């Protein structure tokens, strides 16, 4: 650590005004503040600062995403070997490493494109490099199907970083969650690569690991929600047509977006976020409450033709992106309300809208993405209402004195 500090101090003069690499000042600054907490302090007045700056906050979210990422990698390998029927002969490391190789390029593409744009913009506008993409870059690979081609991830990431973030003013000013805009772009621009039953299971072997599934048939690649939405019963099967129960859904060895399948892995992340104080429990809890209540109501009404209505509320919360969205997306401090009472309303409505979209619109078997984006839009309005209510309450108190 000390050696790194010394090295940075040694090369620093090159990047300062007049140094020979001063054009790359913001790049250097970005790396330095990423590695070490900057020791700049305010010179005037009294300021209260959290000791954790936003780069460290972002790092906590990335750490919290690691369980879901590792499980997602294993699951990618697991699905491939399961469908090929060679799961018994493969070792744990083979299965995991295959998934690792399948997922890694997506992480690299997402970070290179997103950070590339951020660095370019910062350099161009002579600003510091903003840290927001640390989290978005990790979220993006986790919410796409494994068979999603790399170039469309690159296009969507570029679109989201430019149109959902930079034109709003950069990190902290975006009104929509950048990772979800990426997914929304992919979903509407390239629907065949984002939904259906062909994209959720990795189909090609990589460096001799895994299996080519070209000749294999008789498996279903649809996600749990996809199966229920198009099927005639609420029975959910895994890729090789064995029925699964709630326990399997919680463990999450099922087809789905890379990071969203395992409730356990996501809950480990949730605990990390809550203990470190990065995410707010109010939003998280109320998303689940909203989803549970709505799913329970739809289940109580029931439907002959649309099986999604008949799905048990527990299953609704465990399948698809519900948990992942509730834990990592809805709690995004930038795009959710600041007031505590606002967070309850915000979270509750996300849960409600997500289940309503799942049940009422057969075109979108997964409602979480659209629900969070819709509520992002209302976050500021919710805040405004609560702030105004507080102001009025206090005014009344003052006037009645």
């Amino acid at each position, binding site marked *: 650590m000390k050696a790194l500090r010394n090295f940075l101090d040694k090369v620093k003069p090159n990047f300062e005004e007049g140094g020979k690499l001063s054009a790359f000042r913001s790049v250097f600054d970005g790396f330095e503040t990423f590695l070490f907490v900057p020791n700049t302090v305010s010179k005037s007045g009294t300021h209260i600062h959290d000791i954790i700056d936003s780069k460290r906050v972002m790092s906590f979210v990335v750490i919290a995403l690691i369980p879901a990422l590792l499980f997602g990698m294993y699951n990618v390998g697991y699905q491939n070997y399961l469908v090929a029927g060679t799961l018994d002969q493969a070792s744990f490391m083979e299965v995991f490493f295959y998934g690792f190789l399948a997922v890694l390029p997506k992480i690299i593409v997402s970070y290179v494109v997103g950070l590339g744009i951020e660095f370019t913009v910062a350099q161009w506008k002579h600003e510091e490099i903003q840290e927001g993409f640390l989290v978005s870059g990790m979220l993006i690979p986790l919410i796409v199907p494994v068979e999603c*081609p790399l*170039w*469309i991830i690159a*296009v969507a990431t570029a679109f989201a970083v430019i*149109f959902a973030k930079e034109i709003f003013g950069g990190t902290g000013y975006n009104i929509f969650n950048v990772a979800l805009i990426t997914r929304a*772009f992919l979903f*509407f*621009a*390239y*629907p*065949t*690569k984002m939904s259906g039953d062909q994209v959720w299971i990795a189909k090609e072997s990589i460096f001799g690991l895994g299996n080519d599934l070209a000749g294999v048939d008789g498996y279903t690649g649809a996600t749990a929600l996809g199966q229920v939405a198009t099927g005639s019963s609420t029975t959910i099967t895994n890729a090789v047509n064995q029925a699964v129960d709630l326990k399997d859904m919680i463990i999450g060895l099922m087809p789905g977006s890379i990071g969203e399948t395992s409730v356990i892995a996501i809950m480990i992340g949730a605990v990390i976020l809550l203990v470190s104080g990065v995410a707010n429990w109010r939003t998280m809890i109320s998303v689940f409450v909203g989803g549970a209540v709505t799913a329970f109501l739809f289940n109580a009404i029931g439907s002959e033709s649309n099986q999604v209505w008949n799905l048990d509320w527990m299953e609704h919360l465990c399948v698809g992106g519900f948990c992942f969205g509730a834990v990592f997306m809805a709690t995004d401090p930038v795009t959710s309300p600041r007031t505590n009472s606002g967070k309850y309303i915000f979270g509750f409505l996300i849960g409600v809208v997500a289940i309503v979209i799942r049940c009422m619109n057969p075109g979108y078997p997964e409602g979480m993405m659209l629900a969070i984006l819709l509520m992002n839009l209302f976050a500021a309005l919710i805040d405004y209402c609560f702030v105004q209510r507080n102001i009025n309450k206090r005014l009344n108190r003052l006037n009645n004195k």
Partner: protein
Amino acid sequence: MSNLKETFLTPLGLNNPVAVQVLGICSALAVTAQLEPAIVMGLSVTIILALANVVISLLRNTIPNRIRIIVQLVVVATLVTIVSEVLKAFAYDVSVALSVYVGLIITNCILMGRLEAFAMANGPVESLIDGIGNGLGYAIILVIVAFIRELFGAGTLFGCQVIPDCLYEAGYMNCGLMLMPPMALIILGCIIWAMRAKNPELQEK
């Protein structure tokens, strides 16, 4: 003479009705999924605007001020109906593609704007030039947006495939979002962005 030239050229650039005055956005979003309807729409608006400008300019001294909007609407509606019938007779496919938007030219803000702001105060020749200029200014934006949308959304231009098959085999796919209205708005926003970046005098303080 230089005045006429200016009347013709400013709507194409610095005073573009769509990109600077932000008029006529609705139809610009609706008809630009393909190049052909966009061009027909642009030409229709140009013809109607030029003729309406001339007619109103000739009548401008006889129109009572109180009912001028009604008179303008009658003239525009007549011209729109004629163009719509001509399209149905000679270019049926395009008129189906444009559906209600030809009829809705009546409500296009560019028309009322030019009639009120220009034709009511200027002679027929200037009005004709102004109408053509503004119509073409509208058409240019439509064509740019439609070009981008059709190229990336369907891989075609004027219905002919221009993106080679080998690219599709290599994994390229058309962007479905390009065919939806939101993307037209975003492309339009980018055009306005580019124009304002190039001409700082267009930026509000």
